């Protein structure tokens, strides 16, 4: 085995997926899932910066109690665009379209996704959606909040609702096609010996995510279509003045958008499972439970949407059921947290950058999850609904969870993707800044919300200023933490040390091929004979040697 892989490495050293063609065409018309992952990585980074600038404007405006930097209507546009850009153009594609695209075929021993051309189409749809969105922003923006609630969006808004909603609609198809590609690939293209019980947890998480993308996104698509038709032709699907039901819009919207919250966390959980087990040098604790909990979250996640409408005129009994199911969805999430900590217990932990992000994730996601249970309680929700408590809660999950996981995963697989090592010290500093900055930004918002500060307001009473200043200061630190990788990753690409095939002694098929991988991933189809995460065996082998 060893001599063979050495021979393989020698053979492909000159040619890998990165240097296999330098023309624009070889990138823009590529059907290689690895190159498409890079295309996605560049485009979502652009949108992360755009969304980050909007976030910065929001935090700057909230530095003072008066509405001074931005007009209230401009402020409404800025937070709306922050939400739309970050959700549809960054968080939803973040891990699946980049790391997932790169790793799903490799981790299962396939040469590519099942439908490479459709994969490229997904990226083009994403780019077209992005351009339509930018046109919408430049020609007036939109101030409805990312939820596009009717009848405000369909009748009263002065913003460019149709264009921006169209952007979200198109982005949705990009997401559906990615999910479809993943499910077919995972079902049909696993290497011989790679049974369902041996699939990496990253794959399980992406499988669950893809199910949600496939079943949820089309409902959002048709809902946005109906809203746009209502606005364009002045008909009344949801307009109460014309006999329609505005709460029906909310039902249909959240039928997608609550499961979408799990699109924005499940892939991150998959990343964390990989990192925790690798840097604890221990087989993951309770593999079937972590895998099963991903599916449980995906399934239960479809039946909790009503918890967004406790105060929207939904029947109390419906709310009661939604509340109970929401509590239930906390169970599989907690199962994951317990299993990760149990994996770390008595492991030989190495505190390298990905592990720092993973540990940050576990802490912050736990806070985000537990406050989620608080929000799901009907009585308490009456008090905290539409306050900063909610804002803090979902940022703990989305940013403290998903963005931390994305950063962790990006650092973890960076050597594999680029073939270069990055500067560990700078990366650790960045991880620390992100953790501190994040908590400083969002923890005060829990208190603000509990004290009654409503979300989506440009001005506020003076007694809230101290907490808002803390939050804005935290956002500055957070921004610094996110900017640092731009420098040390660039440095890594230009001057970084060459990465070995397996810099962390990790398990999994992706670490058995060269860094960066050859275009065809595997020169010959691998056959898997080992259980998943066999770190204990690896240790014993070493001891014997």
């Amino acid at each position, binding site marked *: 085995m060893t001599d063979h892989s050495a021979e393989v490495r020698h053979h492909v050293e000159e040619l890998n997926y990165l240097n296999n063609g330098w023309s624009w065409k070889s990138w823009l018309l590529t059907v290689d899932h690895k190159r498409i992952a890079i295309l996605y990585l560049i485009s979502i980074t652009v949108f992360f910066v755009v969304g980050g600038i909007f976030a910065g404007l929001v935090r700057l405006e909230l530095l003072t109690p008066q509405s001074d930097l931005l007009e209230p209507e401009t402020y409404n546009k800025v937070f709306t665009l922050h939400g739309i850009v970050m959700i549809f153009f960054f968080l939803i594609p973040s891990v699946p379209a980049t790391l997932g695209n790169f790793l799903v075929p490799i981790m299962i021993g396939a040469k590519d996704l099942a439908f490479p051309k459709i994969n490229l189409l997904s990226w083009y749809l994403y780019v077209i959606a992005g351009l339509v969105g930018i046109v919408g922003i430049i020609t007036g923006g939109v101030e409805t909040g990312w939820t596009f609630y009717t009848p405000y969006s369909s009748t009263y808004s002065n913003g460019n609702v149709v264009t921006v909603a169209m952007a979200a609609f198109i982005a949705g198809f990009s997401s559906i096609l990615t999910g479809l590609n993943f499910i077919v690939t995972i079902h049909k293209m696993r290497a011989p010996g790679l049974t369902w019980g041996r699939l990496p947890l990253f794959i399980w998480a992406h499988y669950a995510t893809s199910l949600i993308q496939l*079943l949820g996104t*089309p409902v959002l698509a048709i809902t946005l279509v109906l809203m746009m038709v209502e606005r364009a032709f002045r008909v*009344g699907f949801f307009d109460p003045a014309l*006999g329609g039901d505005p709460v*029906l819009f909310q039902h249909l919207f959240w039928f997608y958008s609550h499961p979408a919250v799990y699109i924005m966390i499940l892939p991150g959980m998959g990343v964390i499972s990989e990192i925790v087990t690798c840097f604890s040098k221990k087989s993951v604790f309770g593999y079937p439970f972590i895998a099963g909990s991903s599916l449980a979250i995906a399934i239960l996640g479809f039946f909790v949407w009503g918890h967004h409408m406790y105060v929207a005129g939904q029947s109390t009994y419906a709310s009661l059921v939604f509340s109970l199911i929401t509590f239930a969805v906390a169970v599989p999430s907690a199962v994951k947290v317990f299993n990760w900590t149990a994996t770390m217990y008595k492991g030989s932990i190495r505190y390298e950058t990905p592990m720092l992000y993973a540990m940050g994730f576990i802490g912050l996601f736990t806070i985000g999850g537990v406050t989620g249970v608080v929000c799901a309680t009907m009585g308490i929700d009456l008090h905290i609904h539409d306050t900063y408590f909610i804002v803090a809660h979902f940022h703990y999950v989305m940013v403290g969870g998903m963005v931390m996981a994305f950063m962790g995963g990006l650092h973890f697989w960076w050597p594999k993707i680029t073939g270069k090592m990055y500067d560990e010290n700078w990366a650790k500093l960045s991880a620390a800044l992100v953790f501190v900055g994040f908590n400083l930004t969002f923890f005060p918002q829990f208190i603000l919300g509990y004290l009654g500060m409503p979300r989506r307001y440009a001005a506020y009473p003076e007694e809230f200023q101290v907490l808002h200043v803390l939050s804005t200061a935290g956002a500055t630190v957070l921004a610094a933490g996110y900017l640092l990788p731009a420098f040390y990753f660039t440095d890594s690409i230009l001057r970084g040390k060459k990465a070995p095939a397996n810099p962390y002694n990790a398990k999994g098929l992706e670490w058995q091929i060269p860094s960066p991988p050859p275009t065809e991933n595997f020169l010959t189809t691998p056959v898997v004979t080992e259980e998943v995460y066999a770190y204990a065996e690896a240790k014993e082998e070493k001891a014997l040697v």
Partner: protein
Amino acid sequence: MSDAHVATVDQAHAHEAHVAHQFVNARQQYESGNLGMWLFLQTEIMFFGGMFAAYGVYRAWYPEAFKIASTATNVPLGAFNTVVLIVSSLTMALAVQSAQLGKQKRLVWMIILTMLFGAAFLGVKAIEYTEKWHHHHVPGPNFIWEKEGGREVQILYCLYFAMTGMHALHMVIGLGIMTWLLIAALKGRFSPSYYNPVEICGLYWHFVDIVWIFLFPLLYLI
């Protein structure tokens, strides 16, 4: 580095011409293609499902208005279109069978027939829409309803146009797909060992057909 042994099995299989590079063999490609289309149809069910849910809600809210409104639809034309679509599904199924059996000529004819029936459906639909336009039954500021309950009736017409419009759009896309299929069939691309695209396009065609089977009674008959 111990769990990836080298398999020489699939090297023995020479890649057949129609098997794409990412697949190990024709069977894997066939199964992937079929599963992909079935999953896509799931998303389509959810897509139309949003509108069926809205229909359910408003039907429960305004049962009387919906009853009155459906009497104003053109049932004979709707029934004719239903028959046309069912026959087109038959010709589509025969097209798949022709491809499986390698009957090239019959395959081409069945695709052409399916397209003709599809076009006929769209033509009849256009007649119906024009009729609605002349009667001011198109929702919006110009909507006029002579009898009582105009506000509620308009909701049904919103749903009527959204649902049949979305269905017609799927028919138009279907005709585009069938054109591509026809060209491929004329080039003799399909054979008993490679008929997957015909089967997949057939699945799509039948799905669009089935949507209509639900739309017709809901919008015209009850």
